[in-house]
């Protein structure tokens, strides 16, 4: 369904006339099936967030394509209503001038669907992410981190997209809230049959929610492994990553 083919991305380093380029992503290809949760795990600076932006069509790859149902995601009409995102930083994820209701309705109104049922739709979504409908009129700064992230999730699922990119979506929440949000994401996935691309540095969170995990290093795919068989990883880097986990 979502198909990433041979993506290459590099950024210029230095000034206007600089020729040097830093390669962030080198020839990445993978596929994410319908209803699948694909984890992308890597250290900071491994290029996983850049990959997220390319998958979302916000940035243009130097080479290669990202296709959603066979169409290039760089066209915004392809993304409209079919692709969505949740980001790490909940403080800047919601426009400070928007109420929760406006924020959640934003992707829906962009699709120009009927307006009459909007309010009840927002109520339903808030209920689904475990928030009271009274949150509707609140502004972003009145929400706690977990609440803001729930609003972001409600906003992301509002158009019932086929695929959501979760870029470190739970990483900035505290552990007890993390598990709640992960559970919520799991439930919603079953409910709407969406696929997730779950970008994180947290192996445990990824192991909990993902079906398949891509281990990412220096802009390259180190290994792809089924989540159940995570213990059987082959490459030395993946082994090292697994062993460095703190276990209690």
């Amino acid at each position, binding site marked *: 369904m979502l198909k990433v083919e041979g993506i290459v991305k590099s950024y210029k380093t230095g000034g206007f006339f600089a020729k040097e380029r830093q390669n962030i992503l080198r020839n990445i290809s993978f596929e994410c099936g319908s209803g699948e949760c694909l984890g992308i795990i890597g250290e900071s600076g491994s290029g996983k967030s850049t990959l997220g932006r390319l998958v*979302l069509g916000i940035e243009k790859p130097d080479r290669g394509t990202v296709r959603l149902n066979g169409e290039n995601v760089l066209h*915004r009409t392809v993304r409209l209503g079919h*692709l969505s995102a949740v980001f790490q*930083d909940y403080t800047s994820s919601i*426009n400070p001038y928007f109420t929760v209701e406006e924020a959640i309705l934003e*992707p829906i109104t962009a699709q120009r669907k009927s307006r009459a049922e909007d309010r009840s739709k927002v109520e339903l979504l808030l209920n689904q992410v475990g928030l009271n409908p009274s949150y509707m009129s609140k502004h972003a700064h009145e929400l706690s981190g977990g609440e803001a992230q729930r609003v972001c999730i409600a906003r992301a699922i509002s158009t019932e997209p086929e695929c959501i990119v979760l870029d470190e979506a739970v990483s900035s929440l505290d552990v007890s809230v993390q598990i709640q949000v992960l559970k919520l994401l799991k439930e919603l996935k079953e409910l709407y049959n969406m696929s997730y691309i779950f970008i994180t540095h947290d192996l445990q969170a990824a192991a909990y929610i993902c079906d398949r995990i891509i281990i990412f290093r220096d802009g390259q795919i180190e290994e792809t492994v089924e989540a159940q068989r995570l213990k059987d990883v082959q490459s030395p880097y993946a082994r090292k990553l697994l062993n460095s986990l703190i276990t209690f």
Partner: protein
Amino acid sequence: MRIVHNLSKDKLASLSLIIAVAIILVGICAPVFAPHDPNEVNMKLRYAGPSWEYLLGNDHLGRSVLSRLIYGIRPSMLWVLVALGISVGIGSVAGFIAGYFKGKADTVIMRLCDVMLSFPGYVMTLAVVGILGAGLTNIMIAFVVMKWAWFARVIRTSVMQYSEMDYVKFAQACGISHFKIITKHIIPVTLSDIAVIASGSMCSMILQISGLSFLGLGIQAPNAEWGMMLNEARGVMFTRPELMLAPGLAIVIVVSAFNFLADGLQVALDPQLRTSSKKLRTNEVEKSTYEYAGG
């Protein structure tokens, strides 16, 4: 509405706002408020002191100083406002394009701004006046040509900061059009920055236009303008210093009002909602000192 409410808590800023609005209104309705024709010469009343009929006295041609002061609001403030509006408009468009789309558009616009900003302000204005001739319109043209680049720069910085926000990224990812993103997400948050820098640079423009009129390059006689009134009173500076007082004070009051208003706006527009306002503030201070220095 929130802005007005916040501003009303700051006494100095609300007073400045009232003064600025009042002066603008008086300027627009100058024929109603002016007791005499500002260009009516009456040699009998040459250098006459204040009287009930002529509250601020008469100048070297016996013209009513008060009327000239009131008519002087038009070029000194209203036309400056127009020029400011146009340059902010051009600067905003350029700044939004550069800051939002980045890449090549940004490079081209910013290099253009660099070129414009590398000329000292007064020299450019004098050059434009030299080519097109003296007069208010030409000075306005020179102002717009010079100022837009500066606005574009500042607005670009502000837009760039906000276009990195996750809610903008989310909107882009959802496939919402750029135009809608700019109008719904970026303009509301940058508007406060634009208001602050615009009111701040209003002062420098008023001073500049008065300065140029003082040099005789601005508005032409017999039309009234504060800088020119100062110039006309210059000849009798020691025998009749009070003639300099009225236009001088008018300039001081207007410039201070706009300065205090700019300060007040900065505070009023700083909700706890804004995450990066501190960073932005220091940025602005640097920019505005830069502008005054550059003239």
